Each structure stands twice: as C-alpha cells, then as structure tokens.
C-alpha cells in the first residue's frame, strides 16, 4: 500500500501546490488587514476566530462538493444541489414550525428524517433519469434545479419560514468539544466517504465507470447502479448541507438557499484536481478547493473589496490559480528549475 500512497501523495502534493499557495496568500492578506484574523480564542469553552469561522463556513460547500466530486468522477454533473438544499430546509423547517413543540429533539429528528427521505427520493429521480433513461446529466438535473425551488416554495408557501428551535439551531451554530458542530458533521461525512471510497472498491469502480463506461460495463461493473448511487449520495449530502444552511439562519429560504452553489462546488472540485471529463478523483483535493473558495469569499469582506469589484476579484484569483496549476505553466516552471541542474548526458547510439 505504502508505495501507492507515497507516489499518489507526491502527485497530489504537486497538483495541489498552487491552490494551497493561493489559500496561504489569501489568509496572509486577511491577516495583514486584520491582525487578529488568525487568532483563535476560547470563549465559554468554544473556539472562536477566523480559521474556525472558515472551517465552519466551509461545511456547507464541502458537503455539496463531496457529492459533486463523486458525480463528476462518473462523467456526470449535478445542477440540482442548490434546489435540494432548499427543499431540505423547507421540509425540515415547515415540519418543525407546524409542530406544537419546536424545541423537542424528537420533533427535530423526525423533521430531519422526512427531509432526508424527500431528498433521497430526488437523488433516486436524478439517478434514474441519468442511469436508466440515459438523459444527459446536465439536463436531467436541470429539471430539479428548476422545479426543485418551486417545490420548496410550495412547501413554505412562498414565505421564508422562520422557527425557533434550539436542537435544530445546534446543527449550524452549536459547538461540541469546543468545535463547531457544522464542521464536525461535514468532517464526519468527508472522512466517512474518503474511507468508503478507498477502503472498499467503490472509488475505483466509480473511476472506472468515469474513464471508460463501455469497457467498465464489459468488465462486469454495475455501471448503472454506480451512477445511480452517486446521484443519490450527492442529493443526500446536499440535503445535509441544506440543514446546515437553514439552521444557520434558522429559516428556510426556498429562493436563496444554495443559490449558485453548484458552480462553487464544481469550481472546488476542479481546483482540487478532479477532471470534469470524469475518472480519477481526489477528495482531499476537493477539500483544498473548498477551503480556497470559502476563504476567497470570506476575504472579500475582510479586505473590504467594494461590492462592485467582488466579481472581478474572484475572477482574477480563479484565473491565477488555474493558470499556475495548468500543465504548461507547471512545465515551464519545472524546466526553469531544472535549467540550473546539469544537462542530461547524451547517450551514444
């Protein structure tokens, strides 16, 4: 195992080098602007501070990107994640709001349970369209992307459903062992997925299907089931992300919950080194991608970038990271580094 680990590790380190540098630069800029940014303080036994904020804030995107990574590895794409987040929040919160006792843990759990069920159904639906009917993923998931928010609004009656429920609030703003619960949840699923994909054969089968679906099918891989599974997983993770997002503001905002998050998630996945053409994926890469994007968003506020220039700022950072990460530039940089080394000796014929 160790040889795989080290060789894969070396490649990963290389590929993720620039994203990590970007992360460091952004953090540095934030520290320069606000000196206390990186300080972590303990208050009421909880950790506070910029890094903790970033980690907590990353949880939503990490969950969504986690599912997205798997979908992308099979050559797919899931545009419906934002809508699924909205539905998750809508189902859970309207059920809590309608109950007599929003503070009761049982109520919250049953609300979460039914929301998960609904979201899984959506995953099944997406997977069915892609794997069985054979509709192109982007269009198949566009259906829920469009209709999903409608469904969420139908559930909330077009209003923003607000509730007060301490157990539900814990999901996003609670702390456990001094750490934010949201980050723990995302971390748990991240680690679980990393283990499941690499300790079982799921990861390699997903990659196989993504690289060459025809060959995989002929090799006896249940391509259809695998594709179906990743869409279900993706919806599930989006659902959890939806809980965190709605718990964060204690309101189900059917219109805005997770709006455009699919783009951020895809961006994170790609910055993390997974190709949109499917195949080899890296969950660690996705984690780095998520941190870069969350920090980028966060730094906009810290650095006080004018609202009108936010887009431009994001574009420049993304372009820079991608350019530096690109094979051509990497090659050039390596060549320059090598130029100082002795030239390869000509081998006589």
């Amino acid at each position, binding site marked *: 195992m160790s040889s795989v680990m080290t060789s894969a590790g070396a490649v990963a380190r290389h590929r993720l080098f620039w994203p990590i540098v970007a992360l460091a630069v952004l953090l540095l800029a934030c520290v320069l602007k606000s000196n206390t940014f990186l300080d972590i303080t303990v208050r009421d036994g909880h950790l506070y501070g910029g890094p903790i904020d970033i980690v907590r804030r990353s949880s939503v995107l990490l969950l969504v990107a986690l599912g997205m990574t798997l979908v992308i590895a099979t050559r797919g794409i899931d545009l419906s994640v934002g809508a699924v987040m909205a539905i998750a929040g809508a189902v859970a919160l309207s059920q809590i709001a309608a109950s007599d006792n929003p503070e009761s843990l049982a109520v919250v759990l049953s609300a979460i349970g039914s929301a998960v069920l609904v979201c899984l159904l959506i995953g099944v639906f997406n997977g069915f369209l892609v794997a069985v009917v054979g509709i192109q993923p982007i269009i198949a998931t566009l259906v829920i992307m469009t209709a999903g928010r409608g469904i969420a609004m139908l559930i909330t009656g077009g209003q923003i459903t607000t509730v007060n429920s301490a157990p539900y609030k814990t999901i996003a703003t609670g702390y456990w062992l001094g750490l934010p619960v949201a980050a723990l949840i995302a971390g748990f699923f991240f680690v679980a997925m990393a283990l499941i994909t690499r300790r079982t054969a799921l990861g390699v089968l997903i990659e196989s299907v993504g690289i060459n679906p025809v060959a995989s099918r002929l090799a006896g891989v249940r391509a259809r089931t695998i594709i179906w599974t990743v869409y279900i997983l993706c919806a599930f993770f989006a659902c959890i992300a939806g809980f965190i997002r709605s718990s964060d503001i204690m309101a189900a905002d059917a219109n805005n919950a997770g709006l455009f998050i699919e783009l951020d998630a895809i961006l994170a996945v790609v910055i993390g080194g997974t*190709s949109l053409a499917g195949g080899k994926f890296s969950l660690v890469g996705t984690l780095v991608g998520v941190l870069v994007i969350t920090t980028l968003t966060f730094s906009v506020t810290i650095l006080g970038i004018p609202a009108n220039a936010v887009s431009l700022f994001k574009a420049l950072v993304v372009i820079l990271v991608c350019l530096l990460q690109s094979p051509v530039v990497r090659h050039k940089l390596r060549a320059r580094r090598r130029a100082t080394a002795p030239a390869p000796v000509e081998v006589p014929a």
Partner: protein
Amino acid sequence: MATDQLTPSKVPTAPRQSLGTRVRRFHVDERYLPVLGTVIVLIAMLAIGGSLYENFLSGRVMANVLINNSFLVVIAVGMTFVILTGGIDLSVGAVVALSGCVAAWMFSHGFGAAVAIPLVILVGTVIGLVVGVMVHVFEIQPFIATLAAMFLARGLCYIVAPESIPITDPTIVALARTRWGTEDGLVITPSGVIALAVVAIAFVTLHYTRFGRTVYAIGGGEQSAKLMGLPVARTKVLVYVISGTCAGLGGLLFAIFSRSGYALTGVGMELDAIAAVVIGGTLLTGGSGFVLGSVLGVLVLGLIQTIITFQGTLSSWWTKIFIGALLLIFVVLQRLLVIRRR
C-alpha cells in the same frame, strides 16, 4: 490522387458486398434521430397549446417566440460550436450583459452606432479569445476557464455600468421598432433576420467547411483528430472566439431588444443556451449534433415560456414546477423516441 492509378496485381477473391454494411430497417440516419425527436415533441407541444389556449397558434404568438428569443438563438448557435468540440461556455450570459453595458455606455457617451456596434461585438470576441487561449494553451478545463470569464465579464459590467442605462441611439431605436410582415402579426424584426442569418452561416460553416468538420472531429476524439493531422489548436481557440462573438452579437441583440444595458442581464442565460443546445439533440460530450437542433431547442424553451404566460393562473412556485415538468416530459419523450427508433 496517387493511389488511383495503382493496378491491383491480384484479382480480389470475391467482392464483399455485405462487408460492413448494416442492415437498416429505417432509412433515417441515426444521427438525425435526436433532432427528429425534438421536432415531433415540438409539434405535439404546439398542438396541445393550440387546443388549450385561444390565440395560441396565431401568427403573432409564433412570431413572438422567434423575435423574443433571437438573441438566445444567436448565443445557442455559438454554444453549439463549443459543445460540438466537447467543451462548454459558461461565460455567454455575462458576456451578453457586458456587451449590452458597453453598448449603453458608448451610446450614452456620444459614440455613434457605426463605431459602437462593431466594438460591442468585439468585446465578445476578445473574451472568447481569452477563453480559447486559456483552454488551449494552458489546458484549463473549459468549464473553469469560462466560469472565470463569466466572473470577469460580470465584474467588468459593474464597472462599466453600475446602474441600468437606457439606450436612445436612433439606429438602435429604429432597429428595435422595425417590423416586416403581415398585418395579423406574423412579423419579423431585424434581430430575427440577423439570428436567422447567423444560423444559416453557422450551418454552412459546420457542414461545408473544413473548419466545421474539424469541429466535429475534435468532438469525436481530440487525440484522434490530432493524430489525423487536423489543426486542432486553431480550431479549439476559434470555437471559443465564435462563441464569444456570438455572445457579443447576442448582447447587441439583447440591447436592441431591451434598449438598455444592465449589469444583471443574462444571469443564468448560459444555462438556457446549454439547455437549448442539448434539447436540440447535441451531445455534451461532443461530436454529435446540429445547429438547427439548437434553434429548435430555443423554440422549445420559448414555447414553454409562452405556455406559462398563456396559462396565466400559475403561482410563482407552480411556474417553476411547471417549467421543470415540461422540460422533463420533453427530454424523456425525446429520449424514448430515439431509443425506439434505434
């Protein structure tokens, strides 16, 4: 060609008539099936709409579908080139906004139409070129390169035109007002004509030029195309330039359509364009599809909007659900038709 003059030294054993030829029960080429599916479902949609709503099949309504979507037609045409090579262009919506904003800014600063119009289209071309270089030279995935271009163009919008700017330029106003056609509303606007011309040019380019065939070849397999000695590099850059230019032109048409420039126009328009292309039977993996299919795709989306308006009783959320459902019915039907015929 050299080999033509070769005389075989050995008479072939037996000409194999059946060799490699497939038994065909249907005479429709497989490649046309998705488009055919789109046509059939489109006709069904028209029939149902016509039977449900008064005035639905009137010339005016049908003409409106084209007029209202002429900018989308142009964008979808550009998008078709990109998707045929297996790429994607997410920047078009933002480029539409940017060229609209630039147009509005230029007109409000006293530039004439003769200067402004080419420059506005050029804005799209330049962004397309930037994307093309990112995709080809730096091998950045199209999705990301164009996403970055989308942020970039949107960001520039806020700088050029933080608020919406009306356009009062006489040329634009005239272009917006002109209608050719019959009294009963079956009319066409200059924008519509431009859109149709773009479609025609694209059709010829894709099917009757080497460049066009290279586009398809790259979609079929970039590596193969390279080994076949085709100009892959140039073609790949060029498709993004074309898409950017189309988006620039689309922005101009949108500016004519709305007679204003606004930083927030075209949010999500790239998805509409992609949806139109895919609904029109083009495969996102590249290599297969037709520009006419994309036009049909735009018409489908336009028709869905029209049905929503004619329905008139849908709440906001039912509107979304209804659009989703129509889309679903559409793609599933189309898919089933294709499978059947196969």
